[in-house]
């Protein structure tokens, strides 16, 4: 999309509105000017016609005819007129050769617009009465005259046009001034926005705040933006700090792992040893590097689970009970070795929609944890129950339990309830974090309940799938071959 300037848009909008009102104003003003000028012209015409009537003199001729004289200077040169008495005789005219036809016309309106010889005139028709010899005994003779007096309309239009031009010019000047003033005002008014932009530009990994003195905070329109930016920054800072913590923890774990492998190797080469010693040493190095491999694999799993988007194409409708049985089968040997009884209750048919590999990983993480935290000749119970449209997987052990102050942290990455102990058992501190990431991916919930001294229960709830149409067997060769990373 093309970039545009708010300032320019606002100024253009304001100027357009102003221009429209100006045009309307000019229109109205012109009409008014036209009307008033023509009124004035009409008045003038009437006056001129009256003067002309005044100039129609009593005459001395035998028939008491009226005459017209002494009109020099009475009518401007450019005006036209024609005067006729009631007997049809033209007694005077100026610049109007064919005025008689006009007099004869039946149009008796007072004012008319005529075009004579290509020139537009406004013409007044004025009937007049002249009493000849008013001092007579008979009271004089009344003589009717008709006056047609015309004046050019061109100068009137000229004046109207001038007025319009004046209005237009002053309007345009006003527009220009408004534009400049607006530009200036907007620039000043938008100052907080520029300031905000500048402050936002100063945000970096090392400084997560907008400046405390941000002027934008006090602008009502900008305040939501400022608080939105600030809350976004806060969230970013938190997640950044989390990431940083994770990277730092991960680096610590990896460095420690590398240190173990490296020191194991160096120890071997510190002096000459027997073949048997070398063999044993190399075996230890192998175990050490396997632990490192496991750590890396788990970190990658967790990263994929937490960062990757959903991949519904790998989702299958899986029978949770089957997966649990399968995983439990894997752990029977280990449980037997630790003299722990692994009891699985998976009779209820519960279908969940998920990636079967991840479900396996979840089950194996939980069962492995339970076995690791159990003492010899105790029980680990894994069971499935259905509640409403949710399926609940519960893995219980009779181990030493988790103390209350540790419980909230067990899902943290690299957290170890009792670090030295879990290190001895080879834990990476990622198992529960991975389990949580898996459960969250399928919109489920996971929690631990523990009674110190009596045991711990891991409780997972997952949304249940009712339909059996898309059901697929999970125990494919692909899945059973996959190595299960456990905690």
């Amino acid at each position, binding site marked *: 999309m093309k970039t545009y300037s708010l300032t320019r848009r606002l100024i253009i909008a304001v100027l357009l509105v102003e221009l429209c009102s100006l045009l309307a104003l000019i229109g109205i003003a012109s009409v008014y000017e036209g009307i008033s000028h023509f009124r004035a012209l009409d008045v003038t015409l009437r006056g001129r016609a009256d003067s002309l009537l005044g100039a129609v003199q009593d005459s001395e001729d035998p028939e008491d005819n009226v005459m017209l004289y002494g009109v020099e200077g009475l009518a401007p040169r450019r005006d036209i007129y024609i005067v006729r008495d009631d007997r049809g005789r033209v007694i005077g005219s100026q610049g109007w050769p064919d005025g008689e036809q006009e007099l004869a016309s039946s149009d008796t309106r007072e004012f008319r617009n005529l075009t004579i010889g290509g020139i537009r005139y406004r013409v007044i028709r004025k009937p007049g009465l002249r009493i000849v010899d008013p001092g007579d005994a008979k009271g004089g003779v009344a003589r009717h005259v008709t006056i047609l007096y015309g004046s050019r309309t061109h100068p009137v239009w000229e004046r109207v046009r001038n007025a319009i031009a004046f209005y237009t010019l002053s309007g345009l000047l006003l527009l220009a001034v408004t534009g400049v003033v607006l530009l200036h005002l907007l620039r000043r008014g938008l100052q907080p926005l520029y300031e905000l932009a500048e402050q936002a530009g100063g945000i970096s990994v090392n400084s997560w705040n907008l400046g405390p003195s941000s002027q934008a905070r006090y602008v009502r329109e900008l305040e939501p933006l400022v608080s939105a930016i600030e809350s976004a920054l806060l969230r970013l800072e938190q997640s950044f700090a989390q990431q940083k913590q994770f990277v730092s923890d991960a680096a*610590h774990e990896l460095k*420690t792992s590398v*240190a173990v492998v490296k*020191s194991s190797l160096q*120890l071997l080469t*510190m002096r000459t040893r027997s073949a048997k010693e070398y063999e044993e040493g190399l075996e230890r190095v192998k175990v050490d590097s396997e632990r490192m491999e496991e750590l890396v694999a788990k970190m990658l799993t967790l990263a994929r689970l937490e960062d990757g988007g959903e991949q519904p194409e790998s989702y299958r409708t899986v029978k949770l009970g089957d997966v649990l049985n399968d995983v439990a089968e894997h752990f029977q040997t280990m449980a037997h070795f630790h003299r722990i009884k692994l009891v699985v209750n998976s009779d209820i048919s519960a279908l969940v929609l998920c990636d079967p590999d991840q479900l396996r990983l979840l089950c194996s993480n939980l069962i492995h944890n339970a076995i690791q935290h159990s003492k010899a000749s105790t029980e680990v119970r894994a069971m499935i129950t259905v509640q409403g449209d949710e399926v609940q997987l519960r893995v219980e052990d009779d181990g030493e339990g988790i103390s209350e102050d540790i419980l909230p942290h067990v899902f943290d990455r690299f957290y*170890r309830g009792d*670090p030295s102990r879990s*290190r001895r058992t080879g834990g990476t501190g990622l198992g529960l974090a991975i389990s949580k990431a898996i459960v969250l991916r399928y919109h489920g919930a996971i929690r631990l309940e523990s009674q110190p001294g009596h045991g711990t229960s891991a409780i997972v709830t997952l949304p249940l799938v009712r339909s059996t149409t898309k059901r697929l067997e999970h125990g494919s060769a692909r899945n059973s071959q996959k190595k299960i990373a456990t905690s």
Partner: protein
Amino acid sequence: MRILLVEDEIRLAENVAQALRDGPGFAVDHAEDGQTGLSLAENLCYDLIILDLMLPKLDGQTVLRRLRERGDGTAVLILTARSERSSIIQLLNCGADDYLSKPFDLGEVIARAKALIRRGKGMASPALRLGDLELHTGDQSVFRAGNSIVLSPMEYRILEYLMHRPRSIVSKRELLEHMYDFNWAHHSNVIEAHISNLRRKLGEGTNPPTIENLRNRGYRLVLESTNSREPGSEPA
């Protein structure tokens, strides 16, 4: 020399302890968490403490601070996976003597451990000399007037300890504490046997220094047995 190793990663601790025992022949005690480490250090029988930072129960920095607060001057070598300057500066300012970042080189751990112990005893050179007696801590060789003397590891360690503190009385108990870690049963006659062997081997030369036996007080490495005898002390 006896070293306390506080490290929660057991495989790493095993390796470091093994290297310190095999190489310079130090006695090594291992603590898996900060609290255990701190209480072990209370015995004041260590010549060096190697301290990891990320420890369960009590982190390394707190252990270090508590050590220094109670006036323990034992040299401390920090093992850290953090390599940020600020944390290193903070640690050194807290009273650490040196640091190594993971993954470290075992040879370097040994060398630094030796250097810190040497410095702790007020010595600068890796070769210790007393009269015509010479002891090289690098290759653990001992010479008397230019002639090599072959010592058993324990004899060497006793001599090294005494060479670090010439002319002062070292009690049998102190020797026991600094020669053996907790995995050994402490039998004082073991020390006596080693001392007598050592004295015999050193005596092969013509002149002292030799080891004096001060009854009920301990042993003393002296340059001239006839000149520097303390009043009231009995000859061996």
